[in-house]
């Protein structure tokens, strides 16, 4: 029953999309479209959450006479799909709420409004699809509708190039997924997921499918080195769409990976559990280091998406390793950690993109070096952004910490794995995770500190005004959820139990009946965490200190110019900038990874020209992977160009030759 309602919601979204294409230029269109999206996503959210909590009662499967005539379109709602629908629709609902206010700033609504509901519908459909054809079709639909949104402001510098790269990587990823499904379906060609699940591929085929899925779903999720399009394309879209792409669409990609590797592919090999977390660890560290070098606020957030996807893949990979060795309970813990991080990241990443969008529409600036002091002009946005920053930096008592804590607990279970390679690898991955967590904190001290604190570095920042009330409401909904998921994680972990049980055959102990809502992943004597108590303790201790001091000690306060060791400089340009903030970290990590070079151009004594410091960074991954590939394609294209101008005889010879070769291949194959 729940599934039927969900499909009607999606149909309504698609209808809205068509209607918006016709009437986007009318004035109330924006409010109407976002209002419908908000209502529909809220309904879908309630249905998905209800079916996740109620268990089997609301799940179901339908087959619609769409798509390929001999296959039809299969849709199914199960625990995994329900969980990801919660993530999708929560993000969609808050983005629509934000859009109610933010959309009125849009200069070209006809380039945004028709595609926004279509994008939401696409993401919902991918999660519900239950055969290969529908999955790939809706996946591509989701990619193209988001591409259209990326190109909404196509005249701005760099956006067209970003859209082109996105299109290229998306098609490449879909191609990889197409091949993966082809291998999964096998020679018999049963493309419904229920048929695929029955077919047991050989170990070699399983490995190839894993690699193809890592390329296909991983390029969409943004794992290194397939992430290059993400920090260009996500920030190019309008901010609420950036939030959806970073916070939600990457999660749909994670869903694709989980669905194929955990559900369809059958029992894993142990080496999958080595490859996937290693990729995750590298992705996490590289993502956060790129983010630290970045001064564009939205692009910095996009690089953090790369980092968090890495953390999620660490959890997923550990789950694979445990499952391959028959440690079901540990696999359930690792998978729960990864999925909880999926949920958490969708919350705080949407929140942060909303904040960046509010800053962008208030100042017209994305460059942090031209912001500053916004906390005085935009206090509410600043407060919400601060909560999001603390959450993404994995600081207790917020939600990001809980899922990383669970991942650490999973890592601490790994000495019992029998494979020697994993014994070496997993502690290294733990170190990578620890490094990226604290570097993320450094990065958000920079992001929040330089943009919102200090003194304004430009007129635009000085004259900024607070965002509209819809945007504020959307940010505060997410901020409250970040805190709630951080202090009451037990309920969320319990809600994930059916998903873990379906995919690993085990579940974590029931959490919500423990004293004081503590979470205990394995056993009380082993490890426990209680965000609620911690939060209350900190609040109580801070209030106690404040009260005691104001009662018995001084409460006097005097405003004065800053001290600054006696030489305060009134120019805001003497403040620490984002570039100078990250300079120590650049010197520690950047010399190798980015081939960072600093050149000081110091004028001779007597010369009045200003001194200059040039910092040169190289994207080593881009230089080593992408530039050679592009050159090779260019070279091949130029050589093959001749084939466009042949005679009819030559073409016939080519066709005949191809036929002969194919027949020979077939003969040898048989």
């Amino acid at each position: 029953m729940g599934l039927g309602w969900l499909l009607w919601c999606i149909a309504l979204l698609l209808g809205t999309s068509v209607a918006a294409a016709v009437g986007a230029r009318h004035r109330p269109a924006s409010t109407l479209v976002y209002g419908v999206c908000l209502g529909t996503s809220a309904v879908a959210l309630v249905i998905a959450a209800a079916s996740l909590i109620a268990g089997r009662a609301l799940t179901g499967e339908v087959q619609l006479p769409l798509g390929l005539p001999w296959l039809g379109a299969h849709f199914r709602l199960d625990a995994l799909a329900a969980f990801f629908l919660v993530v999708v629709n929560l993000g969609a609902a808050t983005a629509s709420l934000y859009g109610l206010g933010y959309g009125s700033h849009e200069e070209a609504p006809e380039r945004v409004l028709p595609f926004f509901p279509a994008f939401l519908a696409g993401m919902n459909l991918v999660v519900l699809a239950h055969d290969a054809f529908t999955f790939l079709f809706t996946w591509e639909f989701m990619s193209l509708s988001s591409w259209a949104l990326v190109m909404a402001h196509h005249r701005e510098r760099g956006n067209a190039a970003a859209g082109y790269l996105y299109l290229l990587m998306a098609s490449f990823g879909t191609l990889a997924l197409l091949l993966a499904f082809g291998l999964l379906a096998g020679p018999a060609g049963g493309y419904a997921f229920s048929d695929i699940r029955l077919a047991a591929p050989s170990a070699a085929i399983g490995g190839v499918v894993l690699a193809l899925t890592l390329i296909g779903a991983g390029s969409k999720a943004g794992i290194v080195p397939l992430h290059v399009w993400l920090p260009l394309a996500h920030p190019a879209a309008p901010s609420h769409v950036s939030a959806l792409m970073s916070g939600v669409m990457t999660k749909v990609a994670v869903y694709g990976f989980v669905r194929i590797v955990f559900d369809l592919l059958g029992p894993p090999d142990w080496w999958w559990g080595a490859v996937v977390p290693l990729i995750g660890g590298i992705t996490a560290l590289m993502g956060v280091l790129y983010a630290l070098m970045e001064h564009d606020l939205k692009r910095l957030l996009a690089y953090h998406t790369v980092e968090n996807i890495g953390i999620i893949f660490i959890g997923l990979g550990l789950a694979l390793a445990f499952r391959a060795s028959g440690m079901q309970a540990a696999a359930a813990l690792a998978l729960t950690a990864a999925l909880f991080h999926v949920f958490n990241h969708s919350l705080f990443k949407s929140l942060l993109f909303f904040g960046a969008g509010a800053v962008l529409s208030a100042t017209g600036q994305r460059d942090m070096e031209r912001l500053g002091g916004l906390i005085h002009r935009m206090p509410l946005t600043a407060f919400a952004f601060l909560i999001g920053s603390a959450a993404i930096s994995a600081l207790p008592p917020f939600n990001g910490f809980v899922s990383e804590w669970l991942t650490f607990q999973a890592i601490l279970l790994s000495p019992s794995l029998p494979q020697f390679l994993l014994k070496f690898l997993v502690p290294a991955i733990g170190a990578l995770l620890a490094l990226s967590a604290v570097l993320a904190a450094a990065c958000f001290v920079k992001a929040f500190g330089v943009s919102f604190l200090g003194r304004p570095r430009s007129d635009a920042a000085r004259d900024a005004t607070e965002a509209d009330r819809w945007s504020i409401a959307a940010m505060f909904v997410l901020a409250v959820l970040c805190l709630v998921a951080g202090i009451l994680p037990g309920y969320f972990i319990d809600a994930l139990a059916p998903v873990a049980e379906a995919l690993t055959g085990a579940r974590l102990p029931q959490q919500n009946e423990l004293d004081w809502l503590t979470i205990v992943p394995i056993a009380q004597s082993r490890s426990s965490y209680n965000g609620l108590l911690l939060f209350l303790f900190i609040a109580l201790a801070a209030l106690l200190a404040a009260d005691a001091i104001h009662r018995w000690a001084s409460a006097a306060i005097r405003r004065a110019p800053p001290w600054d060791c006696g030489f305060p400089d009134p120019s805001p340009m003497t403040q620490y900038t984002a570039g100078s903030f990250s300079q120590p970290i650049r010197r520690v990590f950047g010399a190798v990874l980015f081939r960072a070079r600093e050149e000081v151009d110091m004028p001779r004594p007597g010369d009045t020209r200003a001194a200059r410091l040039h910092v040169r960074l190289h994207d080593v991954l881009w230089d080593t992977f992408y530039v050679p590939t592009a050159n090779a394609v260019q070279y091949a294209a130029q050589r093959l160009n001749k084939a466009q101008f042949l005679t009819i005889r030559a073409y016939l010879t080519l066709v005949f030759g191809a036929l002969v070769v194919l027949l020979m291949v077939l003969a040898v194959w048989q």
Partner: protein
Amino acid sequence: MAIAIDLLVQLVQMSVVLALAPLLTGFVRKLKAHLLRRQGPPLIQPYRDLLRLLRKEVVLAESASWVFRVAPYLVFAATWVAAALVPTFATGLVFSYAADMIAIVALLGSARFMLALAGLDVGTSFGGIGSSREMMIASLAEPAMLMVVFTVSLMAGSTQLSSIAASMQSPEVGLRVSLALALVGLVMVAIAENARIPVDNPATHLELTMVHEAMILEYSGRHLALIEAASYLKLLLYISVIACVFFPWGIAVSGQGAAAYLAAIAVYGVKLAAGGFLLAVFETAIAKMRVFRVPDFLGAALMLGFLAVLLLFVTRAG
């Protein structure tokens, strides 16, 4: 009844750490002065400093926001809570299950995050230099600390400090290479995190070498008092963690009589004094290093912690 005793122990613990922390700092200062053949301030000078600061008015920079005013309270609260959850003289603290060792490290991270933001809030270059360097140091110190946490919790089979202390007392732990590596790593992290020589100098006010002091340069009055108190607590916390994990002898276990608790408090005092003594001798014997040598120092700590974990992983039978 047992709960009431546990609760009492928890409250005593919270007050003990708060009461002893300034004394520990005063003790270290006094010892350092003696080692340099100076008289040095009296032992209770930190208490006097705190009281004096609390009574003074706050001079607040014009560009400061609420972050600057709230940060001292949050930093103090987070550090105090973290210190209250470390078993100092007794295990079985009633709230110790609320946060294990990873969470305690992260709590200190929260405090650091707020303080670094406060450093950027006024918009001066010294605040920025302090925040930036503090986060650089933390970016290596915290992973090193987590590696140490991994080591001891893999040995004890738990990340709870109470369980770790109990299992480290049991005879089967014995002497292990991993433990030695982890101890050295943890000491290095403790030195860096507490802004001690050779990483940072708590007594310096020479602008270009400051890290922690630069970050809190704009603070005055009660705000400064809270931040100072938090840094005293942090030093006590790190020495307590080292004592609790590597030298857990003499810790009272829940259910023992009042005499045992009193004896345990005395033993704890001795441990703190020993820790303070070693710190003072070490600080006197060594010179401060350049800021960009610090990553080498902490990188060594990280590698030690990592080696310790790796040895454990490899030697542990399937």
